[in-house]
């Protein structure tokens, strides 16, 4: 970077000039906004380099990452040069589309490949990877002052998110318990809330629903109002991913759980209670009445694309999906609004289930210490802040970033109501599933059962009883 650019960036870091001045100054120098962000962070990185930690310890080492194609990855790659400059390390990476990403991770790890040192993952996946011996407990690194730089500030990571990534490996064991192992570290996370099309809502005089019954009503009304569109987008493919967003968030709000953990540690199915049946009936009816016609193939991107193109009036899914769909390139850009949502009128607060994109260290890595340098940098406050301010690293997993005015303003300016929504639902946000090794089997079967219910192939009560029976059988067979 030229000297002038550097001066501008340093002035900004030191608080001498504001963001507006910075961007003005940078633009005058012919630098785009995104590049400006990287430059600013270069300055921040320089500050980091002076915190007394031996950043150059692994100078010359090269590590390789396995990454999912995602804006978080884009943010990581955009900032990578700064990490290389900071440590003198080289970072290679493979990026795979999300459709095949996790299969790729499983293929690499199950074969014991040492090709990748670290990889992106969700917390659910570590329930497989951890016990299988494919990823390491990162507590050993986090709490080792020799290996972790003093500014890392682990406690800064949102507690619910942080603990959701830790599990003691015992089927049914509580997440974040004292004996839990930190299988992964959050990059950013998604809460499941309502994203609705304000234009459609306003035009048809619709109010933002505040519980499941209102949601059904509003969805039906909105669906009737949109020509060739439908009321509400939720996922429906035959996959665990159908269960975990809106569906589980609403389900949990009624005090329901997926599994009961007995006193003896034995797991049993818990989804065939009366309350659960009631919730399922409503959910199924909502999809039948006002869901997408091809709901049963919908994954997050159909749900998102439809709300972004105005095909659907709202969605109960990841908040960041609403964030992206409100951005340029979408027909409804700027029309989307956000609202925290509690399905149960009697509940005190929303209980969003969360998805956490995080980083894990491969147990097969041959250079774990060097890899940890990358992990602490990429999950550290500087990169988080950079990603949140300059790229699309929403929702950042650190409370310090949420406290950052610049980030809050950026969000509020472009995405009104987003920050408020986050603040309302964040306290109740965590993973609501019971951690256990059959997670994917049970949720996939759950999704398949939902599909059958929506297609009227099986009544809700009967379907849930059958599901519970099947789940119990599988748990039993697996010795859980």
């Amino acid at each position, binding site marked *: 970077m030229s000297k002038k650019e550097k001066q501008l960036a340093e002035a900004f870091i030191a608080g001498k000039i504001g963001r507006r001045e910075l961007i003005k100054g940078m633009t005058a120098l012919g630098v785009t906004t995104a590049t400006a962000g990287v430059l600013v962070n270069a300055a921040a990185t320089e500050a980091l380099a002076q915190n007394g930690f031996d950043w150059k310890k692994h100078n010359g080492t090269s590590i390789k990452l396995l990454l999912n194609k995602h804006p978080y990855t*884009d943010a990581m790659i955009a900032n990578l040069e700064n990490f290389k400059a900071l440590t003198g390390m080289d970072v290679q990476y493979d990026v795979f589309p999300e459709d095949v990403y996790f299969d790729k991770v499983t293929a690499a790890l199950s074969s014991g490949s040492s090709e990748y040192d670290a990889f992106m993952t969700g917390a659910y996946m570590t329930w497989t990877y951890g016990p299988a011996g494919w990823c390491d407990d990162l507590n050993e690194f986090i709490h080792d002052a020799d290996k972790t730089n003093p500014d890392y500030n682990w406690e800064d990571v949102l507690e619910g998110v942080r603990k959701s990534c830790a599990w003691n490996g015992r089927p049914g064991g509580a997440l974040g318990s004292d004996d839990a192992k930190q299988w992964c570290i959050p990059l950013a996370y998604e809460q499941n809330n309502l994203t609705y099309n304000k234009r459609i809502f306003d035009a048809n005089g619709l109010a933002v629903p505040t519980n499941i019954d209102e949601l059904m009503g509003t969805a039906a009304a909105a669906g009737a109002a949109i020509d060739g569109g439908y009321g509400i987008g939720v996922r429906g493919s035959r996959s665990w991913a159908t269960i975990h967003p809106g569906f589980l968030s609403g389900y949990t709000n009624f005090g329901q759980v997926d599994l009961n953990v007995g006193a003896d540690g034995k797991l049993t199915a818990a989804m065939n209670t009366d309350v659960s049946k009631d919730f399922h009936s409503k959910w199924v009816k909502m999809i039948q009445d006002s869901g997408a016609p091809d709901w049963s193939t919908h994954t997050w991107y159909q749900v998102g694309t439809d709300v972004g193109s105005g095909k659907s009036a709202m969605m109960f899914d990841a908040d960041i999906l609403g964030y992206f769909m409100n951005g340029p390139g979408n027909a409804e850009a700027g029309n989307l609004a956000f609202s925290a949502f509690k399905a149960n009128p009697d509940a005190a607060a929303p209980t969003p289930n969360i998805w956490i994109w995080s980083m894990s260290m491969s147990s097969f890595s041959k250079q774990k210490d060097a890899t940890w340098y990358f992990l602490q940098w990429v999950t550290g406050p500087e990169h988080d802040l950079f990603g949140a301010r300059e790229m699309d690293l929403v929702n950042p997993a650190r409370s310090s970033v949420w406290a950052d005015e610049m980030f809050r303003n950026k969000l509020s300016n472009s995405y009104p109501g987003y920050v408020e929504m986050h603040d309302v639902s964040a306290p109740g946000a965590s993973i609501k599933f019971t951690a256990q090794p059959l997670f994917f089997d049970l949720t996939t079967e759950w999704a398949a059962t939902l599909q059958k219910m929506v297609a009227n192939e099986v009544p809700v009560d009967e379907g849930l009883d059958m599901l519970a029976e099947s789940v119990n059988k599988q748990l039993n067979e697996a010795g859980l």
Partner: protein
Amino acid sequence: MESVNPIERALRGIAITLVILFFMFPIFWIILMSFQTNETILRMPPSMVFTPTLENYMALITGKLETSAGILEIAFMKNLFNSFFLSTASVAIGLVLGVPAAYAFARLKFKGSEDIAFTLLSFRFAPPLLVLLPLTIYFQQLGLANTYGGLIWVYQLIVLPLILWIVRGYFEDIPADVEYAYRIAGHSWGATFRKIALPLAGPGIAAAALLAFIFAWNNFVFALVLASADKQPVTVGALAFVTASGIQYGQIAAGIVLSIAPTFALALYAQRYLVEGLSLGAVKG
């Protein structure tokens, strides 16, 4: 086969039109789509009237995909190259291994030849995943994981049985006497193979190679499981257009068009081998 009956002619015409419509329309539509932006693609009702844009192709070729979240790097051209390299190399090796073996099975009846031939063919019948899943582990141990060499080896699973089966039929159809005549004239086995068997089975070999190339090109799951990103073919690469910031329908379409183009060009170039060459008795005349 001479149809003079006007009703029959009309019926044939209608049938052939329907066939062309069914098989060609999706391609036609995807080509149209590849010249549109997301905006015009998502219009309802769909319309054939739009201002064509080369944006999608430009993005693929330059590898820069502009999205709301900024510029994304995509490696589509690299994928295309991988497809090309993997398919070509696999077919070449498949021919080197398969053609002599096919000749042995066809001409030099030997003890257990039918069994060995059947065994080889039956590899085609092993479910790919059955082999693929454990193979990841062995490839890791052998250092073949994520190498072109390893992939080309696994591709033999598709290529080799196909070549063996088709080419063998061709060799069998060459009258043995023609080869005997050449041997008796004083030429060695090798010369006979080169100068008589190979040229006469040429159309069959070309057809088999072409088919094998298509099947290799179209493969999806082998590379997906066994290779890292920089070795992925287009079939996997085309999925990369699904990003968190939306599906780039136009680019998917352009990607599909670009991935069909090479195989199709090859088929056009070698069409006489495909249609005429696949007839198992072609060399009898």
